[in-house]
């Protein structure tokens, strides 16, 4: 009888432990990425991580990194399951030709990759990256700029939709 009571108590504890995984509090959407705005289809689709915070990013806006201005255009916009992302690199107003632009990306809430692709230089400082997002949802993108032996990384979030 005493043995059974001990076993029952242990089983109860184990039951609580086993159930613990399912009773965790829902996380803030910010943990996974930008907040969802299902009721506002015209809301932002791009975000950029600057200084540890994630901020909405207008399509076509420039970001300055290590002396290089990078203008980022996503087409089509809003991005669908596939999108071409153009990176326009300039330094002191002049196009930067001799650079390498590569992307690593994956979904924020599901692991499919990550995937890596090299953006194709299309001339006059433009580098085009055809990205296939696989699913609709939020994707993180790490854009690596390799220029003159120096590598810089831009962290972005893109929400693909149908």
């Amino acid at each position: 009888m005493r043995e059974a009571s001990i076993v029952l108590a242990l089983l109860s504890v184990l039951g609580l432990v086993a159930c613990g995984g399912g009773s965790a509090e829902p996380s803030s959407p910010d943990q996974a990425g930008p907040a969802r705005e299902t009721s506002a289809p015209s809301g932002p689709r791009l975000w950029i991580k600057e200084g540890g915070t994630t901020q909405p990013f207008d399509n076509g806006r420039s970001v300055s990194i290590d002396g290089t201005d990078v203008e980022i255009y996503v087409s089509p916009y809003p991005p669908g399951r596939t999108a071409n992302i153009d990176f326009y690199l300039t330094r002191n107003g002049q196009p930067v030709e001799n650079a390498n632009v590569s992307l690593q990306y994956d979904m924020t809430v599901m692991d499919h990759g990550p995937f890596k692709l090299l953006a194709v230089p299309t001339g006059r400082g433009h580098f085009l990256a055809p990205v296939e997002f696989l699913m609709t949802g939020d994707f993180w993108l790490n854009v690596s700029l390799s220029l003159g032996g120096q590598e810089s990384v831009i962290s972005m979030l893109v929400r693909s939709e149908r």
Partner: protein
Amino acid sequence: MSMRWLRPRIRSLAIGAGLAVTASFFLASPALAHGKEVTIKLSCRALQASAPLERTCLATVVATNDGDPVTDGRLTLTAARPGKSDDGLAPVRFSPEAKEGEYVASFTLPAYGTWQFRVEIDKPAEGQVSLEQEILPPSGSDSPVDQVEIQLLRAFDLRDVANIVSLGLHLVGTMVILGANASIFVMAMFIDGPAGMRIRRSAVRFFPWLALASFALLAISGAYNAAYNSPSSSPGLYTPGRVASLPFGDAYVATFALKMVLAGVLVCGTGLLAIALQKTPSWLALPIAGGASLGQSRQTERLVDGRARRSRDADTEATTRGRTIAVIAAANVLDGVAILALVLVMDYLHLLSHAEALFGGS
């Protein structure tokens, strides 16, 4: 006479007045040139959809009053992106086309974005016309890049090994606990006699520890699987909101919650079964020589009248407890089967969440 003299004078005056008006008209035309109203139609497009930055603008200039093409126009195009700090496009001069009144200018824009084109005419009139266009990088079938090498960086590593091992341990734990409950059910229903008694006694002794070990295994592997073997990346089901944000994620989370409730019921049911086994004499007692049960041998010391009655009561109680054990064990097995069914549902929902990627979306 006088009339004859007068008529040539009047005719001369009329001719002279007519010449004067005509002369004043032609003389006045250069002066009016600054005020001459012309209509400019402007259209700009890319000749190749794959190169939207390389554009050609066509300007058609006609006189507003009569629609006649203006052949000697001098037109200049400038372009800038409102809100951008760059210099925009250097002025481009239009060239006349073969068709009268049409002028063309070709140029390459430095960047994508919203461009405001402005065409100015300074001959034969002064004026301007503006056109705003949003020029985005080519995409889809217009994309100049039809092939790109995408590299999958994921490799089979220790994490994958751990994931598989954890799933395997969870499966083993499930099989053991369901097997233990099913064995108790079979013993309670179908195994009888002295040989059965020994097996039952062993079951009573080992069942609680086996159940405990199984649940420990299930708890540890389940806690790991919730983080690393769920539809969403780590921390997986510990952040249900992320899972719920996936296609069919709400249904997945609801199914998982139901599974955990049933798992809790299984834990409780198994504990109840362990207690019931400890309380049931027919599962504890060893058979004695002659085939009588321990309870029956004690009762032989009692009075004859009460002996049969008490014996019947003990048998009834033992039978009832035996049935209770069978019922609890059967309920636990059914609960376990329901959990397995929910696992299949969860796997299917996980598959559905990828259906978009597998079958495409419109």
